[in-house]
């Protein structure tokens, strides 16, 4: 068992706008102009994505999903970042950004195919401006950077037209910060002054490895040496995450170049449903982080400061239950792909030799079916 204890005390310069106790605090650089109704909407987001998450875990336990990567504890980081996006902006997730998917109106059921094994993602990245989940650690940060190069070439940056100017939000984890690809993305983004915001959810762990295995200094410091600003935000504070991401995306759209945001948060669950964290971390760590729960503080604020009544919370709960039911039923209803589909979309145009392979395969499948019929 680990004898390692995380320095969970927030950095003194970590941006926070809502304390774990639910109190609004001001930050000189990140004023957030937000109504209580909007905060209530964020609360709803947080609850809904946590519900999707817990439902997916349950579905995995029941054998309906092969795997699930839980976002528990990281809801605020994802909703804050996701709600900072404008329609035309593009997001590049890892495999854990179910909360960002929610903000992009990507239906939870769309996400499940990958984890159920009925497809490999299978959505159109350009439909909701939400890229496919990317499992190869770090690879998507370069895609995001290239997309930002395209934005520049389209003249969709720095025009001052809020409908036109476009930015990219690239997600990655603390572990990913060690990958060559992520650092190359920093090189490109800086050299090209590209409209891309790198959003690192430092959830303290890369499977079993604590962030100290990757870096001995806070990750937000990484970008300065590449020539663009970095900052650390309380990743469990949805308001702070919204504020800093909004500002960074604004800067990007205004042709001010990239920003690195380190959202300091915690992976409350195992890495995935396959993982057993008892082998490498103390349960007490999660206990400490529970006190910083991203939802509780918003609820506390809404109750105490905004005087939101129990009906609101009840209605959100009810809605989340409905969602859960829909996810549950919808997951079970996801159709298995047909054997013939194996050869679909290998290429835009299937070469002759693969047409032959497909035909032979089809014949074989039919012959086996006949045999067993």
């Amino acid at each position, binding site marked *: 068992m680990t004898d390692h204890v995380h320095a969970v005390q927030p950095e003194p310069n970590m941006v926070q706008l809502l304390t774990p106790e639910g109190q609004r605090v001001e930050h000189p650089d990140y004023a957030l102009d937000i109504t209580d109704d909007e905060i209530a909407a964020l609360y709803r987001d947080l609850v809904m994505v946590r519900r999707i998450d817990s439902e997916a875990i349950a579905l995995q336990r029941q054998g309906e999903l092969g795997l699930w990567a839980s976002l528990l504890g990281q809801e605020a980081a994802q909703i804050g970042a996701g709600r900072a996006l404008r329609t035309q902006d593009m997001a590049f997730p890892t495999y854990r950004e179910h909360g960002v998917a929610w903000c992009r109106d990507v239906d939870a059921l769309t996400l499940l195919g990958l984890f159920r094994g009925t497809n490999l993602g299978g959505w159109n990245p350009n439909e909701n401006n939400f890229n496919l989940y990317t499992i190869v650690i770090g690879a998507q940060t370069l895609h995001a950077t290239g997309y930002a190069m395209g934005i520049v070439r389209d003249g969709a940056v720095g025009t001052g037209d809020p409908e036109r100017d476009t930015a990219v939000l690239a997600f990655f984890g603390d572990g990913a910060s*060690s990958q060559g690809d992520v650092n190359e993305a920093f090189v490109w983004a800086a050299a090209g002054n590209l409209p891309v915001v790198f959003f690192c959810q430092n959830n303290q762990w890369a499977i079993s490895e604590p962030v100290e295995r990757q870096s001995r200094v806070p990750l937000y410091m990484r970008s300065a040496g590449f020539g663009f600003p970095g900052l650390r935000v309380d990743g469990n504070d949805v308001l702070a995450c919204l504020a800093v991401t909004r500002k960074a995306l604004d800067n990007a759209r205004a042709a001010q170049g990239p920003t690195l945001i380190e959202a300091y948060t915690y992976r409350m669950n195992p890495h995935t449903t396959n*993982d057993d964290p008892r082998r490498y971390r103390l349960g007490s760590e999660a206990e400490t982080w529970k006190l910083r729960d991203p939802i509780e503080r918003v609820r506390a604020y809404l109750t105490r400061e905004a005087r939101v009544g129990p009906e609101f919370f009840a209605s959100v709960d009810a809605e989340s239950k409905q969602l859960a039911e829909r996810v549950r039923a919808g997951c079970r209803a996801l159709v298995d792909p047909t054997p013939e589909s194996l050869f679909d979309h290998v290429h835009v145009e299937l070469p002759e030799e693969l047409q032959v392979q497909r035909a032979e395969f089809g014949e*074989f499948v039919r012959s086996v079916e006949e045999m067993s019929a």
Partner: protein
Amino acid sequence: MSQPGERPTLTMAKALNQGLRKAMEADPKVLIMGEDVGKLGGVFRITDGLQKDFGEDRVIDTPLAESGIIGTAVGLAIRGYRPVCEIQFDGFVFPGFDQIVSQVAKFHNRSAGLMKMPITIRIPFGGGIGAVEHHSESPETYFAHTAGLKVVSCSNASDAYWMIQQAVADDDPIVFFEPKRLYHAAKSPIDGTATPLYQARVVRPGEHVTVVGYGPTISTVLEAAAACAEDGVELEVIDLRSISPLDMPTVVESVRRTGRLIVVHEAPNSFGVGAEIATRVQEQAFYSLEAPVLRVTGYDTPYPPSRLEHEWLPNLDRVLDAVDKIMEY
């Protein structure tokens, strides 16, 4: 041969674990390095307990970057160490590909033989475990086509135990493919002695068709052999064990008797291991072949979503189908 009862029985995972332990005991220069290999013991627990017993200096939880893992292993080898690198899953070896093909494979040659690269790169590979994308690939051909590398794969616990020790003790760089879906399958006995590392093994004799496989496909092929035997068709099953170099004498000798050859692997069909074996066999036993060499392999598509993987993989039905086809010649 000693009685099975006398031999210890292990899962393949445990056999690898014990083999690695032996290798570390045998040579203090042996290091294990990779993602999550330390405290966690690897996502498949192959290195379970080793960090505890050999310390953090010898079982190293590295930062998350495969090029870094292989590249630093090269440096360690120059300093006289004997690194065993774990790649967490087959699909994640590619960020380290450059260091493997341009550095690990060539270093001994570039130094005119003055520097050895005794690096073992362990890769859990193959499909059938219901995983998400990039977790079921069979990239062995990339390495087999790379001069300077040796490529081996174990198909059972006993080989796993011995081959990993032989690989670590070998002075050449070796890519070691472990059929992950067999890691935690039934225990099986560990032989008292090792077979030479680069030698294939006839795991079932037969007179009608030679079937060659390695790693995860051997169990399927043996199933097929049992089924065929009921119909009076005797398959001779050869476990290659080493993909590069290839033990062609064993394969050719068999084909000369059977006149028929089927090669089975999970990697995509085209430009795969099957092609190399077929080509060498038709070169070396041209007049013995009574039928073309057939291949039962993954299709030439990306590895499919897991709900389709059993259709895609060289399963029992597909092997039997190939036997039917080849017997028609």
